[in-house]
């Protein structure tokens, strides 16, 4: 990672240190390069888990769903609809029933 930072700095043709001016506070800002964990865990295997993997995990990791409380089907349906309508998730219409069945199997409540 450090090598990348150095390389980028050289490519950008800027001095390495300091990257920028100093505020009166003594705060000086330094460019940052980080790596974020991938969050690429799949849903636990079961009927419909492939549909959930294919339609849900592009936007968020599986843990978001696995940490939810058990909820009735209407609540899960509202969630799937929100993902599609508000956040524009390109959920394949033919997968919706399978996703809902899967969510109910792992997080369903009556």
């Amino acid at each position, binding site marked *: 990672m450090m090598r990348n930072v150095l390389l980028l700095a050289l490519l950008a043709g800027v001095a390495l240190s300091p990257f920028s001016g100093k505020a009166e*506070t003594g705060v000086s800002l330094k460019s940052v390069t980080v790596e974020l964990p991938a969050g690429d865990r799949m849903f636990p295997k079961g009927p419909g888990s492939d549909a959930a993997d294919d339609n849900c995990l592009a*936007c968020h990791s599986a843990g978001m769903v696995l940490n939810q409380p058990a909820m009735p089907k209407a609540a899960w349906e509202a969630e799937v609809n929100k993902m599609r309508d508000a956040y524009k998730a390109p959920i394949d219409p033919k997968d919706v029933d399978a996703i809902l069945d899967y969510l109910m199997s792992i997080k369903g409540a009556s």
Partner: protein
Amino acid sequence: MPQVIPRRPLSTRRHFLGSAGTAALALLSAPAWAETMVDLPLPGGPGRRPLTTEFPQKGAMILQRTRPPLLETPFEVFDQSVFTPNDRFFVRWHWAVIPTEVNVPTFRLAVRGHVNQVLSLSLDDILGLPRVELAAVNQCSGNSRGYFLPRVPGGEWSNGAMGNARWTGVRLKDVLDRAGVKSGAVQVRFKGLDEPVVADGPHFMKSLDIDHARDGEVMLAYAMNGEQLPLLNGFPLRLVVPGWYSTYWVKMLNDIEVLDQPDTNFWTKTAYTIPDTPHASVYPGESGVKMVPINRMVPRSFITNIKPGDPFYAGRAAAARGIAFGGDAGVARVDFSADSGKSWQAAQLGKDEGKYGFRQWQMQFTLPAKGDYLLMVRCTNSNGVAQPDAPNWNPSGFMRNVIESTPVVAS
């Protein structure tokens, strides 16, 4: 058409463990494993979460979601200092496309829209403006959502989606004045470098009314607790809206747009709205309630040195301590009860670091006889607003501020 590829790569960690074999697994003793998990007491569960150190510039955090990151501050951190360390400060992102690289020399903040002069400010330009500093609590609208009953979907936070920092930066007013706001401006909209995963997804943006934006308190922070912001807390610039929920504290802020019409974007108009009722509270299933954008915070207080079930000796003096904040006003008083709220006594307040920040408090108390007790703490702010006895409820899990209770046992 958005380019969305289902992410189904092989987990490198699983692969590593698999190839390392059972010998390596046997080295992971049970206690070591136990230390990497926390159990949040969310009613009905699930409450188990990993304690992760895998995020850049972050120490041990409760992993609520890996992508986009939702990281909660372990509650014991609030017992250790009035300011929340940057590497333990909670993290919350809406979209997973977060720049992993921010280059200080080339970063620019745009100020545009209903202004006389469009600006493109470098970080040097911003560091050259008059410096301001204030302590303020940054709290997620949905902090403590996991305690709502009936439970509601969303980030299932315990009480650690909040933090207190000393923010250093410049007044938003000074930046707007440099651009020259035209008459007829009604709102100012803020946008950061993060982007939707799907091309037609709504870019995260929030707006403030023009008078609020120019009140001299709203600021652009380039430092928290004397250091540049961790990338996940919004490096290099973050909006600070003292007394308001953190949904307005736009991270990686690079675009300020002065509007001459009210903002109708999804995140301002539709998302993050609350019932326009006392405590933003409704009955589950209640419909036809007027909704308004979430706004000012309300008072809260917590005991930080006593956990549920902690043992005490009857008749022996004990000490409680913790933190309180007034929301959109200072802390006027913190009251403590050791008898389930039947009687209250004023706690001793710590140093006032500023009206928008945490205020530490402490209390000596004695549990008179053997038995079960409920310890309670209640903050009243300088506007005279006190925490309520009963929890609020709304379908988004916003604005919880009920008086907290901690069950303990005297023997």
